[in-house]
């Protein structure tokens, strides 16, 4: 086991832990905003660590750039989606507002 593989494996396992924590939070937390908080942690940190762990396995540079691009897109989409859902929840409860 060389050190790069060790770091990559540790990063993958911590990423999986963040995903599990996010899922448990989504199921167990009491209200909508705390569930949103758990969800964004799993999205950003969990996927980020999984991408970091997969980086040494990339066959060429282009593949690595695409891995980072996937993570960036998910982070941007997650932040935008969290804001939209929170705003919708603040404006009016549950079903359609306006």
């Amino acid at each position, binding site marked *: 086991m060389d050190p790069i*593989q060790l770091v990559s*494996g540790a990063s*993958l*396992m911590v*990423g*999986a832990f963040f*995903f*599990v924590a*996010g*899922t*448990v939070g*989504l*199921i167990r937390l009491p209200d*909508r905003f705390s*569930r*949103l908080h758990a*969800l964004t942690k*799993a*999205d950003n940190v*969990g*996927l980020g660590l*999984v*991408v970091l762990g*997969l980086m040494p*396995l990339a*066959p060429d540079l282009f*593949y690595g750039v*695409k*891995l980072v*691009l*996937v993570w960036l*897109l*998910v982070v*941007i*989409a*997650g932040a*935008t*989606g969290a804001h*939209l*859902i929170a*705003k*919708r*929840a603040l404006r009016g*409860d*549950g*079903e*359609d*507002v*306006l």
Partner: protein
Amino acid sequence: MSALLLIVALVLMAGIAAGLIRVAVGPTPSDRMMAAQLMGTSGIGVILLLAPVLAVPALIDVALIFSLLAAVAVTAFTRRRRADNGD
């Protein structure tokens, strides 16, 4: 290394299955949408993990499309108006 990737992918898939509980019990549409979003992100993670194991590098393009469509789904959900479902 490949075994570790498969174990992590399995953990993520168990997370997707557990997220279905939140989709089923709700209680509001926002909660269901959040669960769908988390399942989408876990699905992207599973695809990224399986690409090196199956030696199919093209799977990363599938993950890119997934990450683009996830944003569209949440935006379409929050932009919905009452007029859309017949008064």
